[in-house]
């Protein structure tokens, strides 16, 4: 059977929906998603319009003369933030544009980018703990505080990873990890270790701050995608509220302070 224009529009729209939702959930700012998707549609000689919301995307692909069009609404799948995916999928869009890849080649490239192995968990775990200890030093903590923060982050990040694997609600995870991390630094108050226990307790939860959505949210708002930018900021603010509540509970139980 001859492939009609409708089939071609449809296959492209299905691919673009998959592509755009992956980019969105891997933490790319909105204008780049729009640009990349338009670039791919352009390589096929079609026009594309995309509306990005926090939970779904609406994509319309149409021919240049407006004769035919195909629309698709697609839900956004929860995926961890990945800069590597951002980089690889952006490169794929330029490849499509420069080399006129057909739809099968695009799917192949897309699946290849998605199936890249993740970093080893233990390395990530070690580096995050080290990072937070270095952060404690930046805020003026002494060596005892840095060691306490290292241990606290190791515990908190471990709990976060385990609960994320079990698909527990994010707000619970943020609350619990912050609570446990802050509790781990509380012996500093009880036994009088070091001179800066309040800095240790204050920095022990900072690895949970969702920095990437916060920055992406502002970038989105500045570039005119106010809705999705605000949604990102509000999501991030809720997570910060949860981690503050976790910290607050730890403070109340142990009688510590962060000032």
């Amino acid at each position, binding site marked *: 059977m001859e492939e009609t224009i409708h089939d071609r529009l449809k296959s492209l729209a299905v691919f673009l929906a998959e592509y755009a939702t992956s980019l969105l959930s891997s933490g790319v700012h909105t204008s780049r998603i729009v640009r990349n998707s338009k670039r791919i549609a352009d390589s096929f000689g079609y026009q594309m319009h995309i509306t990005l919301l926090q939970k779904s995307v609406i994509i319309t692909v149409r021919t240049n003369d407006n004769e035919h069009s195909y629309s698709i609404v697609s839900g956004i799948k929860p995926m961890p933030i990945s800069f590597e995916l951002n980089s690889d999928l952006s490169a794929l869009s330029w490849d499509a544009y420069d080399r006129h890849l057909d739809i099968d080649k695009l799917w192949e490239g897309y699946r290849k980018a998605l199936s890249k192995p993740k970093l080893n968990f233990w390395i990530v775990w070690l580096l995050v703990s080290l990072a937070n200890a270095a952060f404690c030093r930046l805020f003026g903590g002494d060596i005892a505080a840095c060691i306490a923060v290292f241990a606290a982050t190791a515990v908190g990040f471990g709990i976060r990873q385990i609960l994320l694997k079990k698909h527990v609600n994010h707000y619970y995870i943020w609350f619990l990890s912050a609570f446990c991390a802050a509790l781990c630094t509380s012996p500093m108050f009880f036994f009088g270790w070091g001179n800066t226990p309040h800095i240790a307790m204050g920095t022990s939860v900072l690895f949970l701050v969702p920095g990437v959505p916060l920055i992406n949210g502002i970038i989105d708002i500045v*570039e005119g995608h106010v809705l999705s930018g605000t949604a990102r900021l509000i999501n991030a603010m809720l997570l910060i509220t949860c981690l503050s509540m976790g910290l607050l509970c730890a403070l109340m139980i142990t009688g510590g302070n962060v000032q």
Partner: protein
Amino acid sequence: MNEIWNTLGEAACDGFFAAIAAIGFSIISNPPLRTLPYCALLAAVGHATRFLLTSSAGMDIASASFSGAFLIGWLSLPFASIVKSPTTTLYIPALLPMVPGMFAYKTILAMHQFMTHLNDNDAASFYMNDFLKNGVTAFTILFGLAVGASLPTLILRRYSFSMTRNKDKKRPATTETI
């Protein structure tokens, strides 16, 4: 003279710890490994700049963050073309150590204190003041960071949006529309 060297030494120390922090915080977000050294360098430069501006030049923390981020934004352009990765994958990890996480959660803690001291007028206004101070600081720093770092990319639109392009297989210029 000695004082200048001392300050520079402190700034270098500040940058070093910021670099470690940037690597660790960005590794959660699964970055391409080839970008990590550049992220660390950018973070060190940006954070040390902010440190120098606030401690020696007496600048406020939001303007200093903006300046540091602006520098990061410019430097991310040549680095991005070296590693063939979008500029955001370089400057967002570099900004992470400067994100005002502490101010953000102190805002929430102050709000809680305000609610517990609701009947004591003096204490309530003290904590309301605390709430506003931390909240405004957190927001202005964050805004300064994001705008500062993305400005250079926006100024050089055409150049900065094609970082991941494979330059050997470029399509002829006549058909370029985006």
